[in-house]
């Protein structure tokens, strides 16, 4: 008996202990390995690159997201004033940390530097692009020559774009052209490279990208192509070309970049694919931008799949901090002249209803034509919603769901032809002005500014009494009495055109920075930034003539005197509306205001390991 038992026991033990190598071989199953199993063909490269899109071509973002969005994201500039609050201050102290180190799966959940309209101290996108470039080279054999070049172009394009977002925030940044090994501390901890060096690398990447990218990838308009790259290059090069000039850095680089801006813009212009032949409002409120003649690249939204909330913030119900009188005054009258020298009737009437009729059509297309209490400045922007969506402001219960909450479906114009044209004409004017470029001709103006002004008007605009603005004629251009003395007349008018075109969009803060005009945000220096339109309260906003407004509702008469509402003087409450309870931002150091400091913690971490990270200039 026992023999059996021993036998059974030993056999059992032996069998279960022998050879278990494969038993423990259980690799993870749910993820794609970064190895030769991936990077097999163009589809894999394209799939890898799609993660860039929602971050770099944000459009209206998605869900309730407001990062890099018009209206809700780009609100720190001289156009916009918040009521019942102090204006957001420029940062005055070095923060503890401005860096962001995210795991790959969290990259898209990152944050941005709202006050700089650029990146955190985050190199995740640079790394993503560098890895793409590295893998394109490594798996070159899996691609045709044209495909290799295109995917290399896409990788280099996103690297350039990622670095641009860092440079606009921090100026000098360390430049890496390949992924960093975790043990290579010397590379990882190198100090910042000079801005010019970095911009030259961006320049090289963009040049390569334009030359080598597809005209259309995979027969789809929704992937990066030559015109997308050229449009972004036009933007980046104008930015840096003028920055280098106005900040007195390098004349040589300034010229080089402005010329590239012109060249990149011409890639788009000469393609003859685009034109400004539909009305302004159709750019922002359309359910679909497919085939829109002015749209170079757009973000598509669809109900139940991906929607946004930016139209809701334009729907007449949601509150807004509004734009100010300073912006209203910069709008040109429809005879093509600044209001002080315009011959248009009522050119000095700043009631919203009158401005809609006397000013450039974009004013009426951007704002409601009445004083709207849902905006703190009483100027309410309805630019980013369709005419129909905006019409429900006083009948909310009938409003279709797509105009509320985060259910908006209107597509976002990510890159549009007008910007390329305005970049082009500005670069051209700057080159002519300073670097001996060809002078700007009337034909150039007709191709750009006048083409934009000649957009057709939509029916609603015509019903509101809007008319097209007269073209800009170089020979008869009138001087604006409000022009800054240091800005030549033509460049002044080009800048004005940008301002009218891009209200609430991505440009304004970066424009005034590159022109070295950050003083525009000084509320003390520009008191009109604290005022709204001309309002007759008893007729237009009677709700404000109530108890809660006593002592804090103020208007400025034409002669400059201020009248405060005291409960009985309602009839006298007619004048420029002093944005209620708005207080100016703190005085700030102009020189410090251009670039963000690095966190003290980041600098300390470098010091601890015997390296140096230089603080941003002026900080």
């Amino acid at each position, binding site marked *: 008996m026992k023999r059996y038992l021993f036998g059974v026991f030993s056999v059992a033990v032996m069998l279960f202990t022998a050879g278990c190598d494969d038993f423990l071989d259980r690799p993870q*199953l749910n993820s794609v390995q970064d190895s030769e199993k991936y990077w097999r063909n163009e589809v894999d490269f394209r799939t890898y690159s799609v993660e860039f899109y929602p971050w770099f071509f944000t459009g209206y973002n998605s869900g309730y997201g407001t990062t890099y969005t018009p209206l809700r994201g780009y609100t720190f500039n001289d156009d916009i004033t918040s009521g019942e609050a102090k204006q957001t201050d420029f940062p005055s102290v070095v923060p503890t940390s401005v860096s962001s*180190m995210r795991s790959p799966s969290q990259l898209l959940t990152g944050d941005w530097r709202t006050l700089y309209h650029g990146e955190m101290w985050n*190199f995740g996108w640079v790394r993503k692009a560098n890895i793409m470039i590295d893998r394109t080279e490594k798996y070159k054999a899996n691609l045709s020559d044209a495909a290799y070049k295109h995917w290399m172009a896409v990788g280099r394009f996103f690297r350039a774009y990622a670095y641009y977002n860092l440079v606009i925030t921090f100026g000098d940044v360390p430049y890496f052209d390949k992924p960093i090994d*975790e043990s290579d501390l010397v590379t990882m901890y190198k100090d910042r490279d000079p801005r010019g060096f970095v911009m030259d690398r961006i320049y090289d990447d963009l040049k390569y990208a334009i030359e080598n990218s597809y005209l259309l990838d995979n027969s789809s308009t929704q992937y990066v192509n030559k015109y997308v790259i050229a449009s972004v290059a036009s933007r980046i090069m104008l930015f840096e070309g003028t920055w280098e000039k106005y900040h007195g850095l390098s004349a040589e680089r300034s010229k080089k970049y402005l010329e590239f801006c012109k060249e990149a813009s011409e890639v788009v212009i000469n393609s003859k694919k685009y034109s400004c032949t539909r009305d302004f409002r159709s750019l922002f409120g359309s359910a679909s931008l497919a085939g829109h003649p002015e749209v170079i690249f757009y973000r598509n939204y669809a109900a139940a*799949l991906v929607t946004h909330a930016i139209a809701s913030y334009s729907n007449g119900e949601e509150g807004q901090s509004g734009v100010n009188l300073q912006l209203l005054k910069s709008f040109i009258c429809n005879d093509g002249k600044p209001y002080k020298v315009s011959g248009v009737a009522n050119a000095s009437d700043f009631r919203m209803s009158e401005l809609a009729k006397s000013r450039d059509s974009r004013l009426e297309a951007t704002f409601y034509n009445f004083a709207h209490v849902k905006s703190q400045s009483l100027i309410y922007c309805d630019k980013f919603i369709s005419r129909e969506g905006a019409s429900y402001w006083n009948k909310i219960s009938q409003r279709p769901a797509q105009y509320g909450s985060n259910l908006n479906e209107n597509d976002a114009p990510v890159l549009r032809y007008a910007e390329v044209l305005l970049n082009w004409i500005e670069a051209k004017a700057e080159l002519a002005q300073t670097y001996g470029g060809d002078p700007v001709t009337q034909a150039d103006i007709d191709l750009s500014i006048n083409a934009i002004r000649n957009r057709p008007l939509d029916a609603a605009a015509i019903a509101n009494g809007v008319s097209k603005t007269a073209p800009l004629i170089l020979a008869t251009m009138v001087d604006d009495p409000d022009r800054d003395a240091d800005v030549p007349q033509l460049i002044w008018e080009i800048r004005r055109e940008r301002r009218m075109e891009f209200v609430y969009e991505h440009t304004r803060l970066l424009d005034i920075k590159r022109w070295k005009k950050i003083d525009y945000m000084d509320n003390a220096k520009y008191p009109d930034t604290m005022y709204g339109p001309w309002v007759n309260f008893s007729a237009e906003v009677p709700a404000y003539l109530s108890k809660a407004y006593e002592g804090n509702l103020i208007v400025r008469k034409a002669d400059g005197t201020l009248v405060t509402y005291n409960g009985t003087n309602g009839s006298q409450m007619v004048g420029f509306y002093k944005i209620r309870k708005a207080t100016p931002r703190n005085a700030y150091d102009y020189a410090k205001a251009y670039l963000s400091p690095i966190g003290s*913690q980041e600098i300390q971490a470098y010091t601890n390991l015997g390296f140096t990270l230089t603080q941003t200039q002026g900080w």
Partner: protein
Amino acid sequence: MKRLDYLLAISRVKRGLVIFGAAALILVLNPSASFAANTAMAMQQSKVKVKGKVTDKSNVGIPGASVSIKGTTTGTVTDIDGNFSIDVPAGSNLTVSFMGYKPQTIKVTKPENALVIALENDNVSLEQVVVVGYGSQKKGNLTGAVTSIDVNKTLESRPIADVGRGLQGTTPGLSVTLPSAEVGSDPKIKVRGQFASINGSTSPLILMDNVEIPSITLVNPDDIESITVLKDAASASIYGAKAAFGVILITTKKGAKQESVNVTYTNNFSWQNSVKDYNMGGVDALEYAMIAAKNAGSTSVGAFYKVTDEGLAKAKDWEKNYGGKIGSNDPTVYGRDWYVNAAGQKVGLRTYDAYEYMIKKWAPSQTHNLTVNGKSGNTTYNIGLGYLDQDGMNKLAKEDNFTRYNSSIRLSSQYNKYITFNAGAIYSKRIKKYPYTTGGTIDPWYYLYRWGPQYPMGYDENGKELRSPASEFHQANTAEQEKNYTNINLGFHLNLSENWTADFDYSHANEEYNWTRRGIRFSGANTWTGGALRKDAAGNQIYVNSNGDVVASGDAGAMPAYDLVNQVYTSVGSTPDHIYRQSTNSQRNTFNAFTTYNLKLNDIHSFKFMAGMNRVSLIDQNHWGQITSMLDFENVQFGSASGLQTAGGGKSWESQLGFFGRVNYSLMDKYLIEANLRYDGSSKFPTNLQWRWFPSFSAGWRLSEEKFMEWAKPILSSFKARASYGVIGDQTVANSLYVSTLGSFTQSTWLDENGNRIYYVNSPNEVLSDVTWQDIATLDFGFDARFFKNELGVVFDWYQRDTKNMLVAMDGITATFGTSSPIGNFGNLRTKGWEVSIDYNHKFSNGVGINAMFTMSDAVTKVTEYGSSKAYSGWYNGKTYGEIWGYRTDRLYQMDDFELDANGKLQQIVLTSANGAKNAGLKAYKLKGDNPVYQAYLQSGSFMFGPGDVKFKDLDGDGQITDGGGTYDNHGDKEVIGNETPRYEYGFRFGADYKGVDFTVFFQGVGKRDLWGSSSTTLPGFNTADGAIASRFCSDYWTESNPNAFYPRPWDMANSTDAFNMRKQDKYLLDMSYLRVKNITLGYTMPNFISKKAFIDKARFFVSLENAYTWDHLDGLPIDPEVMPGVGLLSDDNYQSGRAGISSPAFKTISVGVQLNF
């Protein structure tokens, strides 16, 4: 050649079970002849009749004592008076035993008529056998830190849903916390400290009959025979790879010891009632919000219904006129309860008590358990059936409850002297039903504690339900989480010789988790949007007065009436307009084989050898599907949805293999040594780093058995000193740590031109290729002492547990690297703690028995190696786990702290570097004095420190209040002000019994725990714009007329938890310590002679109170002291956005029940 060996080995392993099964069968078919012969011989001996009585020391008969012939299964049980009668072969030994008494053996040579056997009291016998890893051990010979739990005393009669809740406070070193009161939620169980690994699990291994189970809630408390907690490395290491953070061993009930059929039925009916009052502010909350708004320069505040000066005055009138008269069932009336003001804002006047609308007064529960236990011939069996049905506290939900069904069967059949077959099956079904309102991690409880008291609930004048958290709970369809667990196990036990046994067990567990969410589109009178003017049929405006009565337009006080717009406000296809179902299936195969050999030499040396193996594999698969846009909200099915279809899923697998050996050596039962060795392999690491050796040792010295301790015997019954050290490998990490991946293919928010979401992959993660085991090393010293004839016992342990080679993020990576650091074995962590337990049992000569128990434990965890980072907001070398950094509060600023101008107003000045470098250039109100300390650096937005605001202490004396550099070596005026881990967890129980009446009261508490607020119930002014404010906060705040208030002047924190006045600081840190009367039970066992008449062996009735009373330091805040932010039904870390104490209320329970043994 080598390859051939390898292939053979593999095929052998795969066929292993089959071959072994066949071999066992051959054995079975050839039973030993000698075995049969032995049995036959015993039958032939002459019999004598023995009659007698079993008594205790005081000569009282013991009913139910077992009297059996030693070495056989023949025996009987004493009757109610302790009498028995049995026929035995002459010369045999009779063993008499009863739980709680020392067994006695008497040799019977002749017939006896009145044999009296007096058993000696032995409440805590050192001979008692404790279940340990792969075996059992006499309590007296234990050398590791092992606690066995008295299942009867701990769990019997308690109206609790699961064992985890029952163990709270009963076992030193076992920490059980109940972060959420939601019925059906899992308690958090930790052994020795709250935290042991940054990337690992820190959870103990829970084994039921040597097989890992996914949750303790699946076990029916009634099925449990014993629970043992293995705490140190030496005792747990035998379980290897998953046992690093302690083991909870649950052994289920086996069949009876002697020929019998026993039927037991127990039940319990209980009623739950909220443990705390809702206690949120009413009109005082409106006033608080209004003051906060004014302090920030606003004239109105509120989310959907505004508070204004005018509205506040009217709300106070409303309270005077209607408070207490208008109740929750009365509709909301325009004009009286709310109105639209000149600015077009809805202003709320009536205050609503959300408790009335949403929380049940009494929620019922019931449990029923039936057990059949017995022995028939060589087969023993145990069958258990259990049913639990518990209602949640949600008053409005269509369904809010937790149901559990349990069934189990265990069979054991002794085939012959050598072989015993075992088989068993366990089935557990748990169903949690709750109102489905959202796909996210926030449910309407969140909104209950978010919106202010003026936010209406109930119905409007037109009988339409008002859109509110209440209406959404009410309308919501039901979501169902169903968890099914099935475990089938088969095995056999070999008696190879008298001293040598072997066990083989295979178990297959199948776990299913199905989560069905049935959605709806909500409708109601929309409180979120503006109202519409009320017109009559002819289209004329209707006017009302301030009582809500219709009046003519010209009448005094007439105002145009409004109605809320009644509509379906969930748009088609948006959450929760869908049906969703998720199915998860986990299959676990466990094979255990081990053999034990006992060797005794000259009664002095005693050895026990054990060797075995353990093989576990787990495959986990899940998928989900969803279709939006329901066409039918009554019968929500996939077939009745018409919108977007989405699906997803995943699969993972893992395996562990371990070989182990253990040697126990005892010299004269005085000197005890145990050594364990385990060789572990895990699938989690790269092939070359999969296998590791882990040793552990323990030793004990029974000092009391030494000659030189003789003198102490009258007092010190026994004393044993213990020490142990061991290392266990931990591999509870993801299996992708060493593989660089691009993540899964994910749908982007970028659409192609046709509206399809395009897929993308991430950039690759950075990994290190040499990731391997974490080593958990535990050093333990302890003693077990018993005094006064074993009546009083003390057990104490001190331990230190190191997590060595802890998997942490690599140091020295900076942002330019572009991603988070790779994970490697770079960290160390140390937990130090102690545990004590004291028990006392005494039976007075008059028959009154008393027992008492006290336990307490504490643990502190510190990071001992973690790179070079210094920021106290993250990990750093030297950080104590759970520490809270903050300022020290001095007091509140008063008016006379400030320099006033000629008009008696505060003066605003711009500070210079003379006021501290970090204050330079900032604005502040001018303070009196020569060098006052300014706090301007802590200001933000329009907030400036003024009268009624918090004054902090300038700890570093630099003339300014700052957080320094935010690092542990430059922390400015901040320091560690508390710790959020529970410390000094304790419990004590007192019990008494007399003549069938038994009484137990059990207390449980936590000595120290801090929490910084993160919600409307825990932080003053958390979000005054949303409006909900705990009553405590709006009853005692600073105003000029109340300068000695506890809380500062109102300010809207706007969801911030560390800003303005509420910078983290000691004064407003919540003291979460508590003492709770966890349970009181009064039971009565009917005298046997009465119950016998109904053929009932034992009948016991009981009344029990659970969570009867709580002492805490929360000053009436409406939260339970056990809450943990973020942990709840819908998420383990971000439930209700991580806000503390805003979910289903905790409850106390009163219950009655009966236990019947047939």
